[in-house]
């Protein structure tokens, strides 16, 4: 596979991962991925990276925060709508 058409794929890949391609584009992308080793590896990388970013960035609530939030219950409505 030549490198050149794959520069265009780079843009498409993000939309492919976001599932925002049209059906035609999707079919084209899938067929290209099955042929092109370079793009397939980049696809795997981007997909894995997204999952890894999510996993790494998730932090659990600190202990005690839930209790503090519970104590906020029952405040009198002051008519202020959130913006």
């Amino acid at each position, binding site marked *: 596979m030549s490198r050149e058409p794959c520069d265009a794929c*780079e*843009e498409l*890949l*993000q939309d492919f991962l976001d599932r925002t391609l049209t059906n035609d584009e999707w079919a084209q992308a899938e067929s290209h991925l099955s042929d092109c080793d370079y793009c397939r*590896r*980049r696809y*795997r*990388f*981007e997909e*894995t*990276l*997204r999952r*890894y*970013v*999510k*996993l*790494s*960035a*998730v*932090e*659990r*609530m*600190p202990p005690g*925060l*839930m209790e*503090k*939030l*519970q104590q*906020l*219950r*029952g*405040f*009198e*409505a*002051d*008519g*202020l*709508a*959130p*913006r």
Partner: protein
Amino acid sequence: MSETDATEARRIAAEARDRARFEEEALGLADQVYRVARRLVGSREEAEDLVQETYARAFRSWRSFTPGTNMRAWLLRILTNLNVDRGRRIQRTPQTQPLEESDYYLANKLATAGGEEVLDQDQVVERLSQDSIVNALAEIQPQFREVVVLVDIGDFTYADAAQILDVPIGTVMSRLHRGRRALKQKLAEEALT
């Protein structure tokens, strides 16, 4: 008790039930709200404050929530507005965005970091530490970070993110695109220096 008093008592009881239900549902989302807050601001303490302020405001203005709509998005809208109000938007902001690299910049850098192209992409990603991801996220421009955090970490749709941030959906998409690129660029800098 007069007829009117009885009606009024029923109304008050019904309202208390609605409110308690609202509060339960909101508290059930606290973990997810915190998750977004934690990545929007610089420290755990700030995130805790921000979440508490968000819930204080949400509980006060519970009547303005429309039952059946997306409460998580509603809470996050309060949270992102409070975050802006408190001036956190400018916190830890680099003054200039470095030159944008391509989507594959990080993949290409990491894949060839050892001198030779690595075939297993899981292994390539594992060259990044979890800390480096957290740091890189903290370093990208707040307006891009907001969108990346909402969509890629908070799992919000483009439409929800647009509603939360009060910007057009096209803006969400372009910021997301640029934010992800900026994140990868930061990661490449961290991993390779």
